[in-house]
């Protein structure tokens, strides 16, 4: 782009993941000038969602050789009094990417995602049929390439046109079976205007249909749900960023027991309507859940078990093994071996409290995928003047030798952009900076299937299922199944996300056993008994993602004091970490930020006489960093708006000027004490 960026901002944010975007929006909303860049061409980093073709190019990118080189050109651009902290040129947080296509793919068919690379919308309807060979589209050829090391796709491709009855009960007769491959291809190439999936001729979903309907997919790299009373929901509402997003309630909580997928009753209505539970079980479960809702009030009930694990504690409660299993894995969603009684109770309580706010389960899922959320915050930031540049890499941070502070960045054009504060996502830091950091890994699988893991009256179900560890020591696998009305997959398919902490070498090794338990590879579908048939697997992607959460600031080498690191997505279901760490500090400080951020979001009208929220924000930054100094010019700025600083006898007085909603009493006191100490 011809326009050159301004060379000065208040805050530079590098990376467009959820935490970075929240901070960018908070800063912009409170009047600071923000430059928000991402070296990738899309928003969200590892929080992004992709269309099918988008995901294929993402896969391609990560399957290429990745040597993690660093920028070098910046060295000539910094002065003698400065030092450069290089940033990473290429992301290395994704590993072991494997793709398996089970749906039949006609190798001579040229397909492309409608509109994806379309230059001429006028000819959309004819674009995907009968094109000359030169239009062989990357998406298709790439994938056949990707699948070559594996044996399954061969089988998949060779499948004859056998009727596998994909939900068209009445059309699954002999006529469909005898449909010639030519007709098949035609059916798959219906013009866009018509609803391909509902076409009566079609009896199963082919790979080319997935590619063609690729824009209907919004495939999340990170699979999470929002607790309906969680921090993120609070933040969305308080910041009014929620106006950009729409949600669906997760409709079912599922459990996995003895090879069967079952629906877990969790609300009062569910419990009483359940056909699976006996009357006695219903009473037991209701009694226990009612207790959990305010367990703190009855310490006698659990005090004796505080040292035990939650699963041991459950055994002492009058619950059948069936119910214990559900409470442990599907309601508290905690580990059998390591979760303490208190943590288990807390999680159960959290779950129950979230019930009923928006629906029958405690969880919400954003329409169009989790990747919408960072974009909502980015939009907010932009609306309040934030400047956005994707595909814009940063070579290095420029650190002033004398003060040890970062004063600027040098971008990939060699332009120097200065700022007061810098927010950097962990994946941008080089090995040199992170040499003392130990990262965990998350194993992920993304599946496209043709049926729900548990059939119900409605085919539009959003389900969460926890599959308990297969063997002791391995991890429970979290499965989130999304239907097409979440706007994340095409009609007639389900998008299934599997997530667990890595314990084996690759994601596929960690997750494939669970995938096999729940689904049938498409090629084998014909052998299955109709009644017992598991959903068919059409397409699968496995990968490992680095978990950079919970890393203390001290682990990073040579980090200037005004540079803050945000972590990538963690493996948990909720977004607590992402919101909390927008404080960027240790746990003890994070509650501070939870009150500070919403404050920055408060409407500025009517607050002309009080300090600007942005300044409060910076104040908090400094406070939590222990660099608060009453003579600081920043503080002077804050208070000059209210009172003449010289008339204040001590920092303590300043403190009480802060609006009370900013702090809880406890926090206020600790701030108070710290100010006193500083002042002495």
């Amino acid at each position: 782009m011809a326009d050159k960026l301004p060379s000065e901002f208040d805050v530079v944010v590098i990376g467009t993941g959820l935490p970075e975007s929240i901070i960018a929006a908070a800063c912009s909303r409170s009047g600071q000038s923000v430059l928000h860049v991402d070296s990738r061409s899309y928003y969200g980093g590892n929080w992004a969602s992709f269309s099918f073709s988008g995901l294929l190019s993402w896969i391609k990118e990560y399957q290429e050789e990745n040597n993690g080189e660093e920028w070098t050109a910046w060295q000539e651009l910094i002065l003698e009094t400065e030092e450069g902290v290089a940033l990473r040129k290429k992301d290395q947080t994704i590993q072991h990417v494997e793709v398996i296509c089970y749906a039949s793919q006609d190798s001579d068919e040229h397909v492309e995602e409608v509109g994806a690379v379309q230059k001429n919308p006028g000819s959309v309807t004819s674009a995907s049929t009968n094109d000359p060979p030169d239009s062989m589209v990357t998406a298709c050829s790439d994938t056949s390439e990707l699948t070559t090391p594996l044996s399954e796709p061969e089988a998949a491709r060779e499948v004859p046109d056998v009727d596998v009855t994909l939900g068209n009960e009445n059309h699954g007769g002999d006529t469909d079976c005898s449909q010639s491959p030519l007709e098949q291809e035609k059916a798959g190439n219906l013009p866009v205007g018509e609803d391909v999936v509902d076409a009566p001729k079609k009896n199963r979903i082919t790979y080319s249909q997935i590619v063609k309907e690729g824009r209907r997919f919004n495939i999340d790299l990170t699979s999470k749900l929002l607790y309906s009373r969680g921090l993120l929901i609070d933040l969305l509402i308080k910041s009014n960023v929620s106006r950009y997003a729409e949600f669906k309630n997760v409709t079912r909580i599922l459990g996995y027991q003895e090879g069967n997928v079952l629906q877990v009753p969790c609300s009062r209505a569910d419990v009483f309507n359940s056909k699976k539970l006996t009357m006695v079980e219903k009473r037991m479960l209701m009694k226990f859940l009612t207790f959990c809702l305010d367990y703190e009030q009855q310490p006698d009930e659990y005090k004796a078990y505080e040292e035990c694990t939650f699963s041991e504690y459950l055994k002492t409660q009058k619950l059948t093994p069936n119910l214990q299993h559900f409470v442990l894995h599907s309601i508290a969603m905690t580990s059998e071996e390591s979760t303490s009684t208190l943590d288990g109770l807390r999680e159960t309580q959290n779950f129950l409290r979230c019930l009923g706010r928006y629906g029958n389960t405690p969880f919400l899922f954003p329409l169009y995928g989790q990747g919408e959320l960072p974009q909502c915050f980015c939009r907010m930031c932009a609306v309040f003047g934030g400047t956005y540049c994707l595909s814009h890499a940063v070579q290095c941070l420029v650190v002033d030798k004398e003060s040890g502070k970062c004063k600027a960045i040098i971008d990939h054009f060699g332009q120097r952009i200065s700022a007061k504060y810098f927010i950097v996502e962990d994946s941008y830091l080089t090995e040199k900076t992170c040499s003392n950091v130990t990262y965990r890994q998350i194993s992920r699988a993304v599946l496209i299937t043709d049926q729900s893991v548990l059939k119900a009256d409605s085919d539009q179900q959003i389900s969460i299922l926890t599959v308990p560890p297969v063997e002791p020591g391995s991890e429970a696998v979290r499965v989130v199944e999304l239907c097409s009305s979440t706007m994340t997959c095409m009609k007639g398919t389900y998008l299934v996300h599997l997530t667990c902490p890595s314990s084996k070498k690759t994601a596929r090794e960690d997750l494939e056993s669970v995938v096999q338990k729940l689904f049938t590879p498409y090629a084998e579908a014909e052998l299955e008994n109709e009644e017992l048939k598991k959903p068919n697997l059409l397409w699968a992607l496995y990968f490992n993602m680095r978990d950079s959460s919970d890393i203390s600031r001290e682990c990073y080498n040579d980090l200037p004091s005004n540079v803050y690191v945000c972590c990538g997505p963690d493996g948990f279901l909720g977004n607590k970490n992402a919101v909390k760490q927008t404080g960027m500090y240790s746990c003890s400080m994070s509650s501070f930020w939870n009150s500070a951020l919403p404050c920055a979001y408060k409407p500025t009208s009517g607050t002309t006489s009080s300090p600007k929220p942005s300044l409060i924000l910076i104040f908090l930054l400094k406070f939590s960093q222990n660099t608060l100094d009453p003579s600081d010019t920043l503080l002077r700025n804050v208070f000059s708006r209210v009172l003449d600083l010289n008339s204040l006898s001590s920092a303590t007085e300043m403190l009480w000027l802060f609006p009370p909603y900013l702090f809880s009493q406890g926090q206020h006191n600790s701030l108070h004490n710290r100010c006193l100490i500083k002042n002495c």
Partner: protein
Amino acid sequence: MAGGASGEPGPGAAAGIVVPETQEHLFKVLVIGELGVGKTSIIKRYVHQLFSQHYRATIGVDFALKVLNWDSKTLVRLQLWDIAGQERFGNMTRVYYKEAVGAFVVFDISRESTFEAVLKWKNDLDSKVQLANGIPIPTVLLANKCDQNKDNSHSPSQMDQFCKENGFTGWFETSAKDNINIDEAVRFLVENILANYKNFPNEDDVDKIKLDHTTLRAESKSQCC
């Protein structure tokens, strides 16, 4: 100027709609194009009948709302979504494009480079939003600042051809400064949106959840049980 006449209902007229069979539509329309081509000016001129020479980036506002008494039975609420600071580098969030039903792509007739960027915007638009039936949303090309000297002349027939080849519904030479053709262009786009709407009415998904303060308040009242 039919568009102008029906385009000035004023708040009183809008509130006065009580005829039961009146159909109301809410249309999200995007206004995109390079930096400084006059997107904000067009919106300001159309919605507020104002024009200012002084360029100011749009801060703090998502869209401008115009209520149109389209005909005796149809009320159209038009949300004109201006692009925020981010877009001058061409990186739109999906949030911006989401659920739009029409768009203006604006270029500056006095700067040829802004015309060259038109296709980039059109492609970005088509790749990120489409109607429920999968076809691109109706898009009108605006050759703005027609009160100024042309940088490069495109004959009307060339422009027609360009629109046909690139999937634009039509084009207008406009001037926000002199208020030329802006009402006409909007009217033309709304006609196309309405035509689409009649053919493919929006199926509303009732299960969608919007989080807002009202839900919260309503909910906190009923929480006592």
